[in-house]
């Protein structure tokens, strides 16, 4: 039996096709999210990769902020529920999941069976989110994916405000005008995101294993800064960005009466 999960975020669309709730058959990531052709493109990519027709997929579950907009879904679930399921599948030891998405950050507490026991979300603010990193990367004329490696070269990270993206932008420009090293500025940016998210995580309660989910998990600078701020190791899966879509596919499988 095939089930599909689609995670429609603010900046990207992700799709995962699962066979029998255990085997990942296909996955697709498109850099276009809500209000674009991205979701459909990701879905068509899955069909092309698997050679399946839409009818051969028993159930399709949507998640992410655009979850209610995709007509192909049989049901929808919140991205927190999806990331909890996806992370438990990828890292069964995970008890705290930190998902930094394009426009918000969430911390999810899991019990031993992978069930959500609590969660917190950030308030309406870009600080501590993927959007913050995008804005900062834009100022530095870098791609977001370059931030992690550059941060690793830092000797003395500069201090960037963790309270407001707009003010932090001015701070970054001031630091560059004062001749600060780009790597130190990038490391400061990563620490800023980590500081904000660590405070959120402490509100939820930090239990090991701490696992990062979502696209920002790929950023080594943020991962390491988060680990320092929380004083615990922070693990991640190379599939972290797909964890929401994977969780949605797992949920679809469960809905078919096949608990994983």
């Amino acid at each position: 039996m095939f089930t599909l999960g689609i995670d429609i975020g603010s900046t990207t669309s992700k799709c995962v096709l699962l066979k029998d709730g255990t085997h990942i058959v296909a996955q697709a990531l498109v850099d276009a999210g809500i209000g674009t052709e991205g979701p459909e493109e990701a879905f068509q990519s899955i069909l092309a990769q698997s050679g399946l027709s839409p009818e051969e997929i028993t159930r399709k579950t949507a998640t992410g902020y655009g979850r209610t907009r995709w007509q192909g879904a049989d049901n929808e679930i919140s991205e927190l529920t999806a990331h909890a399921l996806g992370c438990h599948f990828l890292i069964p030891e995970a008890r705290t999941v930190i998902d930094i998405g394009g426009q918000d950050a969430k911390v999810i507490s899991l019990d031993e069976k992978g069930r959500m026991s609590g969660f917190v979300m950030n308030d309406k603010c870009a600080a501590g989110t993927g959007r913050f990193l995008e804005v900062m990367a834009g100022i530095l004329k870098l791609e977001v994916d370059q931030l992690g490696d550059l941060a690793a070269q830092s000797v003395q990270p500069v201090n960037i405000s963790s309270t407001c993206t707009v003010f932090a932008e001015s701070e970054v420009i001031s630091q560059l005008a004062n001749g600060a090293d780009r790597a130190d500025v990038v490391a400061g940016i990563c620490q800023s995101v980590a500081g904000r998210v660590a405070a959120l995580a402490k509100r939820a309660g930090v239990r090991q294993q701490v696992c990062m989910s979502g696209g920002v998990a790929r950023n080594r600078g943020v991962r390491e800064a988060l680990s320092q701020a929380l004083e615990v190791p922070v693990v991640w899966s190379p599939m972290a960005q797909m964890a929401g879509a994977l969780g949605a596919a797992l949920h679809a499988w469960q809905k078919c009466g096949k608990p994983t």
Partner: protein
Amino acid sequence: MSVQEILKTFQDIAANPRAQMDRCLAQGDKVVLTAPVYTPEAIIHAMGLVPFGVWGADLTLRKSKEYFPAFICSIMQSVLELGINDTYKGASAIVIPSLCDSLKCLGENWKYAVPSIPFIPMTYPQNRNNDVGRAFTKAGYERVIADLEKATGASFREDRLGKSLEIYNRHNAVMRLVDKTLTAHPEVTAAQRSAVYKSAWFMRKEEHTALVMDLLDALNDAQPGAEKVKVMTSGILCDSPALLEIFDDLGFQIACDDVAAESRQYRTDVPKGLAPLDALCEQFARMNDCSVLYDVEKHRAQLIVDTAQARGAKGVVVVLTKFCDPEEFDYPIIKKACDAAGLPVLLVEVDRQMANFEQARTALETFRDVIS
């Protein structure tokens, strides 16, 4: 009338306060606005005036920003915005209590921003449950009476207050009963439940009591609907149609509440056996379990736990009005008490200017997954 017909009446009144006010004015009645959280409505009622609750509205704030800083309660800001926009035109006065710092600012700003509607302050004591506190409250009520007489030309008589207190006690009892009855009726939506409470602010209490009694009769004859996920709400206000729609969409039933604009209003009756004005002071002295009422013990947290458990609520949704510091101070205490009782808590921040509730939807949807 059927349950749905009566609920529709409540919803029409709750959604059209201006029409309700115009009706009063057309009958020759004088309307006195009453600001949150507790105002001596019975005094206004006893003087033959119509008390009319003002808890603001969901709207974009523009002119009120000339008077308030950015980070202050949007309920207060929207009350002033509506005042400046002449939405309350025709009202004879507004009584604004001093129960939080934002309310104090509202009163002072109102004097300058809305000079056409006289501002009457009601200054309450922090330590209300002792002789000095009672005397302070009484002095505050006497000031309200004197100012009302001046603003409206109406006169105050204590025997009339006694009759009004009976009407208000009766209303309290009926509201407590409907609150319990609605727990057993999941078919009544969150939006409909809210309208039962909200309409009370725009109706004479004897009229609201009669309509609630009709609802109780109809509910007693009705078959309860299918079970939903029961939750308790807590906060200052929970009347946003967009937010309530999310509760309904996601299959929640608000089984009980600790909301200032709802059940908190009806917990404490005016005691019998005292002179009417003293009895009204005694009622305030005995009131508790509210973020704006000083309480060293913070018994409110345990009340929330006990109520939620008694009504079968699987979790508590704290609907926190942004920048409401009394509620923000209470939140950690409530969270701790609920955690200790194994009662999940969700914090949803709202304000009067919110146009998009998608983050709240995600949080509530996830909360449903956690508790069900």
